[in-house]
Every structure is written in structure tokens, then in C-alpha cells.
């Protein structure tokens, strides 16, 4: 458990929020997206998206700008991960993988059930 706590300390806890994690994962996989497409893909409200995108932008993980849109508006808000955002996401994913392997190892020896949360 101490090892898991140490691994968790080295990652940004802001990215451990499920919605922010999903936003960052989608941008990491696809590349720049409009906020309209992000909201539709994640099935969240505009308020939710706005709060989480703003938080990620403040941390320097997202770049926001207005670009040509494919929807009803000529210009629409777009987001992409910054280099810092990509780096932090990759670091987080590596740490989560290590934590899962440690926890899975512990579960096998103690025969406990359920998926761990962070």
C-alpha cells in the first residue's frame, strides 16, 4: 500500500478525475477536437465540460482556440493537448499500469474481489 501511495504522489491528482481523464484520453488518441465534438463523444453537459476543460487549461495541459468549424457555426472553440499535457498523461498512464499490477498481485494473494479505484 505504501508503494501505491508513492506512485500516486508522483501523478497530477487533477487527471485522476474520471471526466478529465476521459477528456485527456480522447484528445491524446484523436488529436485536436472541437468542444462540441468532445461533449457529444463523452455524453456530458456543457457545464461539466466547461469546468473540466477550464481546469485542464489552467494547468497548462490544454490549448484552446477558435478555429473553422464543421458545424452550424463558422468558428468554434477547439482544444488540443499541449506537450506538457501529453507528457503528464503518458506519465499517469504508466503509473496507473504499475499500480494495477501491484494491486492485482496483492488481490491474487489475498483473494479479495472488486475493481480498485483511485
Amino acid at each position: 500500500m505504501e508503494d501505491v501511495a508513492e506512485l500516486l504522489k508522483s501523478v497530477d491528482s487533477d487527471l485522476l478525475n474520471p471526466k478529465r481523464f476521459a477528456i485527456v484520453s480522447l484528445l491524446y488518441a484523436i488529436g485536436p477536437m472541437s468542444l462540441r465534438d468532445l461533449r457529444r463523444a463523452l455524453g456530458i453537459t456543457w457545464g461539466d465540460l466547461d469546468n473540466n476543460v477550464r481546469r485542464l487549461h489552467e494547468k497548462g495541459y490544454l490549448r484552446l482556440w477558435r478555429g473553422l468549424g464543421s458545424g452550424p457555426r463558422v468558428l468554434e472553440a477547439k482544444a488540443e493537448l499541449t506537450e506538457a499535457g501529453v507528457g503528464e498523461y503518458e506519465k499517469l498512464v504508466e503509473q496507473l499500469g504499475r499500480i494495477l499490477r501491484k494491486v492485482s498481485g496483492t488481490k491474487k494473494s489475498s483473494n479479495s474481489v472488486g475493481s480498485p479505484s483511485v
Partner: protein
Amino acid sequence: MGEEQLDLSRAVALADLAQKMRKYFLTVQAAYAFLFYGSFITAYWLAIVCLAELLKAWSLDFFWLAAVLTLILIVILVGYITAVASPRATSDAWRKRGKFFGPVFAVPFIVLYTLPWPPNFYIVVWYPALAVSLLLEHLFIERGEYRQGEISARPFLLSSLIILFTSPLVLAVAAASLMAGWMLALSLVLLSYSIAALSALCNARKLLGN
């Protein structure tokens, strides 16, 4: 009220899928770029040959040298435009070294065209020069991308090897016939780019379990 918690195994599964998708898009992007540049360069040289015929410039070294230099400038400009037009996820290697793509690409052309070739060969010297350019781009950018697992194919390497391997044939045909050598070179460039692109698309498909 506390924040929602991240389900660890789901997060790791999502991240794994995100990494595969990112690699898939980067590999497919490389494949389509090859198809685009192959078609574009073929179209350019067909227009240049048309111009050579109209101006009777076949034996003018200056004409062919100007055509090669113009192509290099156009490729750099087109490279910039396509990067702006398709802002998908960019690999680390391209972000750091992409601005050197143009100069690295140009050097073999400049070196080979300053060598004293027999007259007929100037019309096809761009072919082995292209092989060396593609190989240099592989060593400078693509190899790093591939080793870091950012892409799952090496179209620059594959096409450079095909072109390098067929260069003696092109030079031999050019020695016998100017036009035949040039047409063969153009045809083999398109073929090598198509093979490299197809190979990249097949490798990309494997990433998603197909």
C-alpha cells in the same frame, strides 16, 4: 461532496485503447502522406516534361536543375500547408525535428546534381537522390518515431530501399533511352510509394486487432 473516483482497471484499458488509436492515426497519416506526395511529385514532373517539350529544353542542364530546385521549394511549402490543414496528433519526433525535413530532403539532390554525370543521366539522377533523401528522413525522424512506438510502420525506409534497389535499372534504361529511363523512374516512384503506403495501412490495421 467528494470528487468521483477513477476506476483503475477501466482507466488503464481506456489509456491502452487511446495509445493504440494514437499510433493508428499517426501510421495512417504517414501512409496517406506517401500517397499524396507520390501523386503530387508525379504530376509535377509530368508538367515539367510537357514544358520541356514545348520549349525544346531537353538538353538544357539549367532547365532541369531549375526544375529540381523548384520542386524542393514546392515540397517544403506543400509540407507546411498539409501540416496546417490536417492537425491530427503529431509525433514527438516530428514536433522536434520536422522543421529540418526540407533541408535534409534537399541535400542529396544538391550533392548528386553537382556530380559530372553523362548527359542522359541528368533526367533521372533525381531517382537515386530521392532514395537517399528518403533514407535520410528515415534515419533522422522516422527511426526515432518507430523505436519509441509512436508509429507501427516505416514507409520512408521501405520506399527508399525499393528505389535504391531499382536505381541501377533506371540508370541503365536512361543510358539507352532518355524518355524510357525517365518514364520508368516516375513509374517506380509511384509504385514504391504505393507499396510503402499499403504496408503502413496494413500495419495500422493490426493495431486495432484486425
